């Protein structure tokens, strides 16, 4: 098993595809059909298009805060690809690649960053919890989802996404511990992107790896090259399979990098060197997957140009639709506090509605 072969205490990290697009562990290469490989790469490219457009809109003052994804595509897409439709995902806030892989529609995603709760209402057939802003709080939800699946006899696993900084919160610990005690079918996907806003990972913990933290909870952890989609898929698939087989939780440390700013409110040049960023650009997950596919003759420049152009247009359409109709409906801010409005809410609803109506603000 990978989790045993790649013991984090021995300084090992799983890598299958190297930064230059070479397969360095042929026997570990997952068997993925060619059309699926292309589909995955398209999701990756699409993720980047959606990401850059969001940034642009934000700079133009048309989008609110946004948390860039660039650099973390492989760890998100590779891991999400290992899940089935029935599996549950508890995200933090920077999971664009995973969201798109699992089929969340772009409009919903953009609506969230546009500042409308409707962006947290994914369709009924998609099992993803809303963005969780309080760091690592969602890990516990993943454990609960897994516990419920287990006692209800459902063949569902849960996965939680979080960052290196997320491992410092008490909730990370409580979630890991509970998952260990109840052996829930849960995958903890720590995206170690080296930074928590301005704080580098060695100020988050004195632990050498994040993966080894699993051993404090009676289960295993593995450190994976997070910019290698194959390694990410392989490690997650193994964890998912083990979870399904009743073998409990796994912690995956995806060793990756946030190439962009923390959010659009952040200026990373204040706290990190360009050189570091450039070095990580060399390890770009998109680049290495592209080279691999090109070498296999599955992809080329023209295909990329056409695909990107098509997607850019699509994105623009979606966003302009949002700009037309993406405002929050007044009623919605009262409607969903409870299944039924309480008497005081009904009263306030009427009062506030009248106020804004009088002013033509609705």
């Amino acid at each position: 098993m990978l989790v045993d072969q790649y013991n984090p205490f021995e300084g090992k990290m799983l890598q299958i595809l190297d930064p230059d697009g070479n397969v360095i562990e042929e026997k570990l290469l997952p068997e993925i059909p060619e059309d699926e490989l292309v589909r995955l790469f398209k999701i990756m490219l699409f993720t980047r298009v959606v990401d850059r457009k969001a940034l642009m809109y934000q700079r133009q003052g048309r989008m609110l805060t946004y948390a860039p994804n660039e650099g973390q595509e492989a760890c998100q897409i590779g891991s999400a690809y290992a899940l089935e439709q029935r599996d549950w995902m508890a995200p933090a806030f920077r999971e664009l690649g995973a969201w798109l892989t699992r089929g969340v529609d772009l409009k919903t995603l953009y609506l969230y960053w546009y500042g409308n709760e409707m962006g947290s209402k994914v369709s009924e057939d998609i099992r993803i919890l809303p963005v969780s802003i309080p760091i690592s709080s969602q890990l516990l939800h993943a454990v609960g989802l897994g516990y419920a699946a287990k006692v209800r006899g459902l063949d569902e696993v849960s996965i939680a996404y979080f960052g290196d900084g997320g491992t410092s919160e008490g909730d990370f610990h409580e979630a890991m511990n509970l998952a260990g005690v109840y052996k829930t079918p849960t995958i903890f996907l720590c995206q170690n992107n080296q930074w928590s806003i301005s704080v580098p990972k060695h100020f988050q913990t004195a632990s050498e790896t994040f993966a080894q933290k699993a051993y404090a909870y009676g289960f295993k952890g593995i450190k994976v090259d997070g910019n290698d989609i194959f390694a990410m898929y392989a490690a997650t698939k193994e964890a998912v399979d083990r979870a399904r087989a009743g073998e409990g939780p796994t912690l995956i440390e995806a060793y990756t990098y946030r190439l962009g700013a923390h959010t659009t409110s952040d200026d990373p040049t204040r706290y990190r060197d360009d050189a570091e960023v450039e070095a990580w650009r060399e390890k770009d997950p998109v680049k290495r997957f592209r080279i691999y596919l090109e070498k296999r003759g599955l992809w080329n420049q023209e295909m990329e140009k056409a695909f990107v152009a098509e997607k850019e247009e699509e994105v623009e359409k979606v966003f302009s639709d949002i700009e037309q109709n993406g405002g929050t409906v007044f009623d919605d801010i009262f409607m969903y506090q409870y299944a039924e409005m309480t008497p005081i809410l009904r009263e306030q609803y009427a009062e506030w509605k009248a106020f804004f109506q009088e002013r033509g603000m609705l």
Partner: protein
Amino acid sequence: MPVFNNIQALNYALMQEMEKDPSIVVFGEDVGYEGGVFRATVDLQAKFGVERCFDTPISESGIVGMAVGMAINGLKPVVELQFCGFTYPAFNQIISHVSRMRNRSRGRYTLPMVIRFPFGGGIRALEHHSESPEALFAHIPGLKVVAPSTPYDTKGLLLAALRDPDPVIFMEPKRIYRAFKQEVPEDDYVIEIGKANIVKEGEDLTIVTWGAMVRDTLKAVEKANEKGIHPEVIDLRTIAPMDRETIIKSVKKTGRILIVQEAVKSFSVASEIIALVNEKAFLHLEAPPARVTAPDIIVPLPRGEQFYMPHPDMIYEKINEVVNFLT
């Protein structure tokens, strides 16, 4: 009809409802094998198995956070936090998620769940075991806060909480867990959340109270009755959403109001009730709305607790003061 004290009524209601609703799971520290430090969950594990009634690590944030995920995936979690003072480690999960999931997801994810804990002082316990934090929960949009005062209400309100589509904070006045018994119907019945109970009708003064203070208040009222004063006593039952109608109607009748609570005075539930009657019944007020509460101090250890807990005489005196206020 069985005769139960509060803790027995609670256990009975859980037992009955778990039988009916296989999605209910009950858990918390010492809740499983031991049946809870107050025995609220006794026999549930034996009866429904370890998956539906189980012990947890000492991990309040974990207990509540895990319940969030369980509720989303088809279970109805009933969690026990061992004491009022140990709700604080779970505040982030309660405020940031429990109260908000429905709204955040615009109805896509909802959290039918109950968070139970014993509250209030008077059992000569250690620090953090005697808190009355209802104001903290009541201030949070998206939560419902319930506090029964009798075995009958305990069963009815707990069943209502268990069937509520939204999260309910269920505060149990621990001082009266075993203070008295009452007939509790075997039949299914619920007490609507958000409805207060007029425990005693009267015309001279409205008294609003809840939890363990209901009994102390009734004692003071009895004394007042002997002097020909007839207060109307409202047991709030639900703190949020509050039964404003019942309070207002009563105050419009009596013109006077006194709130009796065990919590500290300032920024409290009592404050909100005063604000409410000002807003809705101001011109009916014949005397300043008054409160009998603990002083604004940290609950003392047991040897000083008697100075903290509202003394029955304080209630009695305040009744007189309010009723005798000249207008």
